[in-house]
């Protein structure tokens, strides 16, 4: 993942105040916070509520609604495996099972800094099974291809 800033109320306030007027809304605010800090710490909720003049409950409502918003720090490597129909048709289920076996972790969990998540379609449905590793789209995946992309992502970080 790209490097992130350390959390501080001051930094968050600066970011929120610099947002253009038309984007001073809850979801874009949360997305900005996540882009800068890598996740949305609990402490950011009152800051957003104050800056946007909304209730904390509303901010939490939005934060918990969207799959993309993270309430804990991101792993160094995020792997998204497509589990939708077009990829199922070309072996997404066996691929997911092999990844779980090889990395010893079920989809939805993190181990040794590698997070495996399910994703419902990456728009690469003619070249499935599809996966994404730290934002890089892969087609015609097997365990080796995904593994190589994970190793490459790790070497970039090392």
């Amino acid at each position: 993942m790209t490097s992130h800033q350390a959390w501080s109320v001051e930094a968050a306030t600066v970011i929120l105040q610099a947002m253009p007027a038309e984007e001073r809304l809850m979801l874009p605010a949360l997305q900005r916070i996540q882009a800068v800090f890598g996740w949305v710490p609990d402490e950011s909720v009152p800051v957003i509520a104050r800056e946007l003049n909304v209730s904390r409950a509303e901010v939490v409502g939005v934060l918990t609604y969207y799959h993309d918003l993270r309430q804990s720090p991101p792993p160094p490597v995020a792997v998204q495996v497509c589990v939708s129909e077009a990829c199922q048709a070309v072996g997404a289920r066996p691929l997911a099972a092999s990844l779980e076996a090889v990395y010893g972790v079920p989809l939805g969990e993190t181990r040794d800094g590698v997070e495996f998540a399910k994703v419902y379609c990456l728009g690469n449905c003619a070249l499935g099974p599809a996966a994404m590793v730290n934002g890089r789209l892969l087609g015609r995946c097997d365990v080796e291809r995904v593994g190589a992309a994970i190793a490459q992502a790790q070497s970039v970080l090392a």
Partner: protein
Amino acid sequence: MTRIYVPRDSAARSVGADEVARAVENECGVRGINVEIVRNGSRGLLWLEPLVEVETSRGRMGYGPVTPGDVPGLIDGGFLEGAHHELALGVVDDIPWLARQQRVSFARVGIIDPLDLDAYRATGGLRGLQRALQESAEEIVGDVLASGLRGRGGAGFPAGIKWRTVLEAESLDKYICCNADEGDSGTFADRMLMEGDPFTLLEGMAIAGVAVGATRGLIYVRSEYPDAIATLRTAVDIARVDGWLGVDVMGTGRTFDIRVVEGAGSYVCGEETAMLESLEGKRGMVRPKPPIPALKGLFGQPTLVHNVLTLSAVPSIIADGPGDYQALGVDRSRGTQVFQLAGNLARGGIVEIAFGVTLRELIEDFGGGTLSGRPLRAVQVGGPLGAYLPAEALDVSMDYEALADSGGLLGHGGVVAFDDSIDMATQARFAMEFCAVESCGKCTPCRIGSTRGIEVIDKITAGVDRELNLVLLEDLCATMTDGSLCAMGGLTPLPVLSALAHFPEDFHRPPEVTP
């Protein structure tokens, strides 16, 4: 200088197009050969990606699928002159798969560098907007009506009627919202168009803005499409610099500007009212209709909501008049549909062709049968809320009405093929699971019913009170169909019940052989 095209489309990149482009550059550099590498969109022959094209006097010669390791041999073999090679495909425009298509919305995708505005103009771009700026609002809306264009996002509502409603709505503040959430599995045409020819979408939106009197446009793009988002944002900047977006569109004193907004991973945010909530920065909860978005949409203002493909069909309809478009298609399905062939097919990709092509032509002639070589068993048309059709049903005409008559729906035009290794009870279970994960939570039948559905299907496959649970499943589906506010809960029964209807044997296996 020889011009070489290596696609920048993310599907092409997912199988190595960047590495191939680098290899071409390096190999030519080492040999002191001067070449110009253009990163075009994808032609949509996805099974051939990375598909490299070389410009020659005979036309653009194709080679594919190319790996970086193939590059030295290709150059040795004279591919820079378009020479024959085992990867050679001949003149790309003449490949029957492509030559048989009727590309309107995708006319430019794969042909030009997506961000080269001169190339866009040279291939007929901006004629539609120029014409729209000289016409009255009523004339433009009349053209859209006359073209017969219907919404490509799923519901198939006549576009012109929506345009007229927004035009007649009184407000100083109106919006054009492009739905680029493309959540349906098996669909990728919005993505390929946004990555491969973003100016067409922007031009379509600008024409819509001029027609209905909106000054602001928003494009809501799913976060799974980072390349599309980046391409669109750059395209908007280029259009502003060129003066056809912004405060003085082509010097007419009219204002129309576009902002690209990123989604946050929610399927139901593709439903238009949930998308509007999300664009307002809130939870993506579906709003009851009425009021319809055309009258009370974004921030309560009249809003024209359209899918990417609907808006992208507009520039050519306005530039060339509605007649050409209307002349294509069958019955009440006019023009072309951008079909997306996906799943277990030998030749997957984009097939833009007039409505009325049969599913068999798509699967067999274009798709080339299954990738695995095993018998075809089922085809899901229209995304995760679409029906599973059996291999015997391939003669259906691909248009809105014929598909509805055969118990299916066209949706966003996705066609996903499965071979005989698929278990349809597992697919039915997945449909329920997807609904449970993605439900916005407003209606009980959708939120709770889907979880119940998973449990009931599990009991059926496990052989627990099978007949009783099959009845229960049908009841549950009826409750979801009748008691859901939107098509998420309302149409999830479609894949479930079609699987049950066409493949009952998969629900009646001895439990020990159920996968």
